[in-house]
């Protein structure tokens, strides 16, 4: 049983009993879909369908549908990829790292954060496949499969191959971790359900019996998976950053990238969790579970990671100057003052300046301000990847090949497609899966019968 300090704010407010928790969470799963949810789903599926036109056109006609060219070989595709992967970092960080650090406040948000991770990684993983010239071959040629082509094997030197391993490992571990956590809650819903729903949730809950031995195993597995997932939080974005760091292009060839990318990923992941949870708690009336306290804690993580990212930006500039390498110096001057200056300064404003507002307590405890800033942060993080990828490539070593990149409707359409996919999946999750880990959160409800009226 949870022992809560009398001077520390309770993590769950509203004097919830264990029954209240079950009821509050299961209510969404059992009730009729709300109008807001239906409208949300309609918009998401609409975006998905609209975006799929761009996806189909790309697959049918070729990558030429995008704005890429001889000099800029990656732009929105890999920007979106890194952006979504970054967003996908928060879930595992919250559920695994914070589990190991015994941060109990994570319990209210880890379920949704993990779901977000999985959906974000699905969106991210789409890009490495569709950005290929020949995805119908590349989708499996990039795997080290035994083959009939003789001694043909993948190139283990290539960071892109490391990406394949990193992303797929991360995705599978996250998925298992998430699902293991869902099992007791599915059982809860199963126990309350009747008819066809009972069968479905029964199957999903893998015959959970709630025995002490089952709980013990559950706890062990969760801890082991947390241990496995923790290094992945660091490794995935480190490896993604190797795509750039191991290359020879000025602006990419930078050893600071791994920590800088990981910090950026956590930064954007927390921002995305905030954007989603602020809406979810309102719509599903979960204010007692996801409290201002949660939001404030997450905002503090954003200040820290935002500052790390800011320092990384400044360090890059310093090193460019300090290296004395003309091409490197130009790459950075060009970022700030070249034709894409607006992207750079959008990035700086959104990522470095705006999170600093969270030093002000009033802002970091304001729902509206947090919601707006969380979106601003994700805009900034998208620009960060755009700046790294496009402004480094568009003016590299030989001035004869310097070009501009302009996105086409297909670039925008595919980005829209991933939004549609992400929100469709998230809305389906929110409706049919328990959005808060009931089983876990019950462990932090005050045990005394005194109702806390806070």
């Amino acid at each position, binding site marked *: 049983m949870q022992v809560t300090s009398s001077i520390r704010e309770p993590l769950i407010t509203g004097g919830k009993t264990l029954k209240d928790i079950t009821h509050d969470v299961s209510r969404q799963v059992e009730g009729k879909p709300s109008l807001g949810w239906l409208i949300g789903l309609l918009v998401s599926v609409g975006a998905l369908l609209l975006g799929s036109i761009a996806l189909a056109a790309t697959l049918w*006609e*070729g*990558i*030429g549908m995008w*704005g*890429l*060219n*001889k*000099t800029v*070989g*990656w732009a929105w595709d890999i920007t979106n990829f890194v952006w979504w992967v970054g967003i996908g970092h928060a879930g595992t960080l919250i559920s695994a790292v914070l589990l190991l650090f015994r941060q109990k406040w994570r319990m209210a948000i880890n379920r949704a954060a993990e779901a977000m991770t999985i959906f974000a990684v699905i969106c991210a993983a789409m890009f*490495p496949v569709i*950005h*290929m*010239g*020949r*995805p119908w*071959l*590349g989708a499996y*040629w*990039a795997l080290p499969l035994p083959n009939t082509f003789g001694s*043909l*094997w*993948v*190139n283990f*030197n*290539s*960071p*892109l*191959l490391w990406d*394949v391993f990193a992303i797929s490992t991360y995705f599978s571990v996250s998925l298992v971790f998430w699902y293991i956590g869902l099992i007791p809650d599915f059982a809860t819903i199963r126990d309350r359900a009747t008819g066809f729903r009972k069968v479905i949730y029964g199957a999903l809950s893998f015959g959970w019996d709630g025995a002490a031995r089952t709980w013990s195993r559950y706890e062990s597995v969760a801890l082991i998976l947390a241990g496995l997932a923790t290094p992945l939080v660091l490794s995935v974005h480190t490896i993604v950053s190797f*795509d750039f760091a*191991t*290359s*020879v*292009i000025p602006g990419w060839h930078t050893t600071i990238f791994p920590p800088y990318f990981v910090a950026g990923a956590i930064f954007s992941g927390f921002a995305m969790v905030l954007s989603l949870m602020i809406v979810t708690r309102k719509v599903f009336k979960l204010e007692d579970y996801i409290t201002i306290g949660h939001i404030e804690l997450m905002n503090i993580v954003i200040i820290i990671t935002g500052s790390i990212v800011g320092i990384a930006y400044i360090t890059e500039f310093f090193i460019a100057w300090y290296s004395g*390498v*003309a*091409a490197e110096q*130009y790459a950075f*001057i*060009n970022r700030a*003052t070249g034709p894409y200056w607006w992207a750079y300064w959008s990035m700086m404003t959104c990522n470095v300046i705006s999170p600093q507002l969270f030093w002000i307590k009033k802002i970091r405890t304001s729902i509206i301000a947090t919601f707006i800033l969380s979106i601003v942060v994700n805009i900034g993080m998208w620009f960060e990847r755009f700046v790294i990828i496009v402004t480094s*490539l568009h*003016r*590299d*070593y*030989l*001035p*004869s*090949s*310097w*070009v*501009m990149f302009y996105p086409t409707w297909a670039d925008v359409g595919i980005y829209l497609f991933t939004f549609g996919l992400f929100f469709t999946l998230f809305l389906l999750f929110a409706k049919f899966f328990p959005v808060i880990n009931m089983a876990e959160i019950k462990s932090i409800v005050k045990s005394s019968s005194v109702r806390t009226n806070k």
Partner: protein
Amino acid sequence: MKENKKTYWKGLEQLTNETDFVKNADQEFPGYLPINSNEEGGPSRRDFLKMMGFSIAAASLAACEAPVRRAIPYVNKPVDIDPSIPNYYASTFYSQGIYASLVVKTREGRPIKLDGNNISPINQGGVNAIVEASVLSLYDQQRLTGPYINSEKSDWLTLDAQVKANLAGAGNVKIVTNTIISPSTERTLQLLSDSIGGAEIITYDPVSNYGIIKAAEIFYGSAVLPSYNFDQADIIVSFGADFLGTWISPIEFAKDYSKTRKISKERPEMSRHYQFESNLSMTGANADYRTPIKASQSGLAVLALYNAIAAQAGGVSYSSPAVEINHLDKAAKELLANRGRSLVISGSNDPNVQVVVNAINDLLGNNGTTVDFSNPSFYKKGNDVNMNQFVTDINAGRIGGVLFYNCNPVYDFARGAEIAEGIAKVKVSVSTNETMDETSSLVQYVAPDHNYLESWNDFNPKSGEYSLAQPTISPLFDTRQAQESFLIWAGEETTYYDFLQENWRTSFFDTQAVVSDFQQFWDISLYNGIYSIPRESSAISAVGDPSVAAAAVARTYNAAGEGTELVIYTKVGIGTGTFANNPWLQEMADPITKVTWDNYLTVPQKWANDNGLRMQENNTGMANLTIGGTSIVLPVVVQPGQAMGTVGLALGYGRNKAGRVADGIGVNAYPFLEVTNGFVNYDITEGVTVELTSDSYAIARTQTHETYMGRDFVVQESTLPEYKDDAFAGRYRPRIYKDGEFVEPSNISLWQGHKYGQHHWGMAIDMNSCIGCGACTIACQVENNVAVVGKQEVLNRREMHWIRIDRYYSSDGDPDDLKAMEKAAENPEVVFQPMTCQHCNNAPCETVCPVSATTHSSEGLNQMTYNRCIGTRYCANNCPYKVRRFNWFKYHDNKDFAVVNYPQNDDLGKMVLNPDVTVRARGVMEKCSLCVQRIQSGKLTAKREKRQMVDGDVNVACAAACPTDAIVFGDMRNPESRLTNLLQIREDSLSFLKEVNEERAYHVLEEINTSPNIWYLTKIRNKDKSEA
């Protein structure tokens, strides 16, 4: 059981105890029955089942309908044609001044590639872009497939009967043609002319040099075009003559010029080249000293030079308005110091200017050395005066019949519109043009000629120099060689082939004493492609004097013209527009502006700044150009080096009956040409106004950044005096600090290196010789089936060329001010840097490919495996040279690209494809392969001949085409190779990293240690000191 005493014999054999029987008696089955195995090699039961299975499968598969590809096997294989083995035939290209003796490569009876004929004393193995690309015109769908009468398809019998009858009865027939340098063709035309009562042959050239011919007549008394010997000139002064790109015989001149631009420590000397011109021409871009002048000053500049030289050399000076022209005095001084070894030329078509030029060369003693009137050349014979008279006559209805022999004056003569009207007034009009162009679509009879690759012909480009053309493919269509038509219409019985041979027998056979049998003489000439009659050059003496001309020049030119002047020029790729329907040429970036698929008004940079015009990437403005009364709206390109007060416009565009590729591209500048005293004038100095409109225009340039930003790791250049002091002049040699000392970047590496076996291929590119002409780009495109992508895709920055020429302007900007460094100087120095795959030994592309689709060969090549490529484009991103090209779309067999990329789309166009090179699929990366198919074929040849490869067995397409030998390809492991000697590769070089002693040789981006196999030699300008 009771013992049975009886013995039953199995047979009589048992009774007689035969050995064979006894041996097998105790076996139930005889050993030879195929039961267990077939150890003895006979067919087994399993074999039987296998055979049966196969038969059934094969029979059922055979029953399916296999797709029938139109591959028709030879019933009787021609002796000379072996599938996959190319045949080579000597032939000749000539069109409007551009002459090249060729070796035509044919595969399975199809010409697919043209290389220069190395033994030709004229083009000396060089070609240019137009010649290279001309093979595609053979497979152009626009070609007429048979004769036409009044735009209706007809047959030759009908046409011949009508043409013969009508021409004979027409009265006052004129035969209009571009310059003909074929002696036999001239004779057939003469026969035709005689047969119809003396038809006059009128020769004109779209770009006329009649001024030079007329000046020769005035000054020397003989109306000829002289031969120019650039290789003997130490000082070259050119007034607006683009002799490396478009003027008279550019391939020959480029070849000769390049010989004076090769320098080494042993011979640190090169020619000095002054250029005075309005537009920045490719030649001007190569000049050591270039001065922009207004067209209206050009005559006075020539006269001022004459006066400066006459004052020293004892000639008569003529009064002339004073004109201030930078570098002119310096040029005069140096010309005088190099008498007999200097050359002054002018691109003007004004005979008065050319007379003064003759007088200058005469005073300098160049007559007979660098300018040779005793051995005239015949590249241009057009007579503007006659042609203008013809236009006047045809409009006045004084002409009864007209025959256009492979010329298109309705399009490419200044008064084309008048000719179009006039054609309707003649009784009979005939054309032999290959396509239904602007002229042939107006005539009654079109008797389409063969393409030159289907024809027999002979050529006489220069006095004493002859060459032959032979058919390299049987005629694709129901066309007929024009000379054959002339013979038929003249009533001759002979074929043109016999006629040609007969002509050679009577004209040339006796000029040699090597062989006594004509057939042998003919075979040798045909095999060589060329035949030369030795000759001497001598100075011919002047009969005229330049006083009249000088007075005319002083009168007609203007020292300080105020108005805007239009200088009309021709582009290196499109030329006069004859080959405009060739997508390779349309997509070839102009050497200077790097624009494809368009013509445009080039305006001075300062003018653009004053008028608020800025080119942003591929966006530019449009201008309203008014000349006299006519107005035209066209895009504008800001051109550094364009003389203030002038604008430039290229000929060759604005065609409307060229074909699907060229129609509607650009504007036609021919109607703007002025006719002055019967001479076509390309400099319009009066009545020109240019006003910017508010419209913007997307202009497809392959390079939009003008300067190299002071990056000496990209371009390394110096001047000749500095080079003489220190052969390392201009070199940037990065050193990296490691373990207490500064070392070369190549000494620091994570890599193990490669092991090369027999060969290590490499290349050296001499930036001092490269003139930027783009022949390499087109040669590579032909050789390697490089796709054409069209204007929109060039706008999208997706051109596919495997070798490009980077053109950089110098900047006046402060090196620390990066924004200022982006701006070209007002009159910049220009550097050309051919850029292709560097075949790095530490290739950044190879490490990043996830599927190992790009790998290193055991001979130093960086190879692309198209089949394996999944198209992540990581390699292209990581290529610091940006030479990798991605197939963004399916460019072959795709209706979206059917027009621009017809070599990969229609059946006819596909005949030009090189069968040794894959046509790349959508979604794969491609790039320079260092012509691996040529290397392979060279290796196989050597192997078949059981010998070691020797230098020269293999040459890559770009190096072979290069008219200035700027590109040298070879085996760096062969100590004898030209490349090894040029670079002076150290014998103690590590096995894979070559170290060189040649001071000028450098790697682009040496400091990132990609360790390329391509070396560049520094650009050395022959200037007294560095200046922009």
